[in-house]
């Protein structure tokens, strides 16, 4: 209460006291006790008002040792109390905490990760409490082999867990709809980490530019069935990891703008440098390790919605990928620009079979662009 309010209250009490004293003189003895009790209460209230007014009037100089509350006075303390009360009554924040999200990401990835048979076996033993050397003795393998396998398995899991956690953190509520905003650098980085370079390229061309499988095949010089297998593998992987039966993908314009920006920065030599050689060498040098059993074969039951500006396109994913009946979308600048630049290179290099060369280089160039984007997004780690 302010000084003015206290003084007003004291005045009311004094008026009431006068009226009661007048009533007491005229009242009989039986009623006198009740009036005296009320008078005593009023006297106590008057004493309380006087004490409050005295407390509001500082009688000493404020020294440097005075606490904030006494220096600021009652108003500051009242304001602080109101803020505390509001904060306490606000209740717990909605949704899962970051710790709970991380636990969810770890559980999901551990259950659904694509590990090899050996990696899964050694990781199960290690999680039961056995050390690398112990597992090696039990499996009758060399200790360094087992340690290396465990490291690779854990690195794979770590990468997937970080990517999944980044995506889950950006969700408001985990209610079955997963929103993937490719404009957010964190989400884009997570998605690029979860997919191979080929999958990145084909998914972008299939859903970002909305080309058909045959058009992508003609562009990249690859059979359309291989493209379908890559896209399906990518979607199955995302379906297993991302929680929800519906996903909304946004930020395709921003992704296209990013690709064009990187394309403008690239020099001709860098454009067709990387992307595919490592994969091919891996296939020819040693045989592929046996993959662990895929977790419960369940058909894809995902609905993907792609938002580009004000246009929304829905792709149902069930046993077969539905053919895309929509026309191409996007600005349509990236692929013609790529094509022109490569044609200039072909002319300068006097390439004979331009068409075959071009289709090989187009897919390489796109993979190189995604590689550079991923490298820059990871630049903050170093």
């Amino acid at each position: 209460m302010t000084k003015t309010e206290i003084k007003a209250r004291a005045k009311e009490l004094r008026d009431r006291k006068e009226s009661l004293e007048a009533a007491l003189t005229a009242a009989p003895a039986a009623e006198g006790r009740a009036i005296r009790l009320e008078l005593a209460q009023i006297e106590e209230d008057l004493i309380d008002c006087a004490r409050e007014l005295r407390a509001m009037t500082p009688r000493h100089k404020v020294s440097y040792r005075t606490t904030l509350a006494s220096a600021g006075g009652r108003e500051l303390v009242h304001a602080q109390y109101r803020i505390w009360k509001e904060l306490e009554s606000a209740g717990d924040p909605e949704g899962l905490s970051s710790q709970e999200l991380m636990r969810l990401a770890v559980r999901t990835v551990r259950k659904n990760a694509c590990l090899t048979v050996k990696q899964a076996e050694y990781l199960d033993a290690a999680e039961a409490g056995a050390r690398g050397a112990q597992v090696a003795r039990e499996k009758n393998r060399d200790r360094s082999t087992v340690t290396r396998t465990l490291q690779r398995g854990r690195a794979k899991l770590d990468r997937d867990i970080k990517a999944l956690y980044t995506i889950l953190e950006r969700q408001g509520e985990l209610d079955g709809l997963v929103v993937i905003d490719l404009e957010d650098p964190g989400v884009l980085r997570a998605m690029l980490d979860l997919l191979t370079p080929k999958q990145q390229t084909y998914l972008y061309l299939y859903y970002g530019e909305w080309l058909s499988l045959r058009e992508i095949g003609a562009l990249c010089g690859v059979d359309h069935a291989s493209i379908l297998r890559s896209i399906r593998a990518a979607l199955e992987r995302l379906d297993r990891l991302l929680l929800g039966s519906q996903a909304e993908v946004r930020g395709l314009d921003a992704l296209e703008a990013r690709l064009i920006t990187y394309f403008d920065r690239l020099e001709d030599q860098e454009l067709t440098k990387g992307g595919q050689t490592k994969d091919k060498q891996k296939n020819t040098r040693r045989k592929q390790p046996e993959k662990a059993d895929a977790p419960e074969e369940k058909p894809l039951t995902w609905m993907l919605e792609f938002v580009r500006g004000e246009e929304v396109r829905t792709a149902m994913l069930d046993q077969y990928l539905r053919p895309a009946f929509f026309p191409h979308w996007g600005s349509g600048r990236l692929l013609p620009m790529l094509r022109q630049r490569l044609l200039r290179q072909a002319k300068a290099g006097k390439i004979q079979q331009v068409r075959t060369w071009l289709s090989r280089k187009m897919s390489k160039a796109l993979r190189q662009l995604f590689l550079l984007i991923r490298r820059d997004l990871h630049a903050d780690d170093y």
Partner: protein
Amino acid sequence: MASLSEISDGYREAAALIRMRLDEIRAQIPEAQGAHRKKLEAKAANLSGVLQQMRDMRQLTKEYYTRSRDGTYTCSQLRASRLDGSKR
């Protein structure tokens, strides 16, 4: 469990009752004589002590969360001396 504001109201009622009784005793003192007067004066002294405590408790419970902190019942005014008196 009663809240502090309800407890404060209880102390207010108690203080009012004690004050009323104190006023009655003080009204009897001038007319009393000798031992009876001394007895009444002792009672009045006790009751005024109790009344003061009731007022203090009323103030404490009423303004427990909003009172100004001047360092009383805190460590803010405790200071450790720079010199250790035991070392010579």
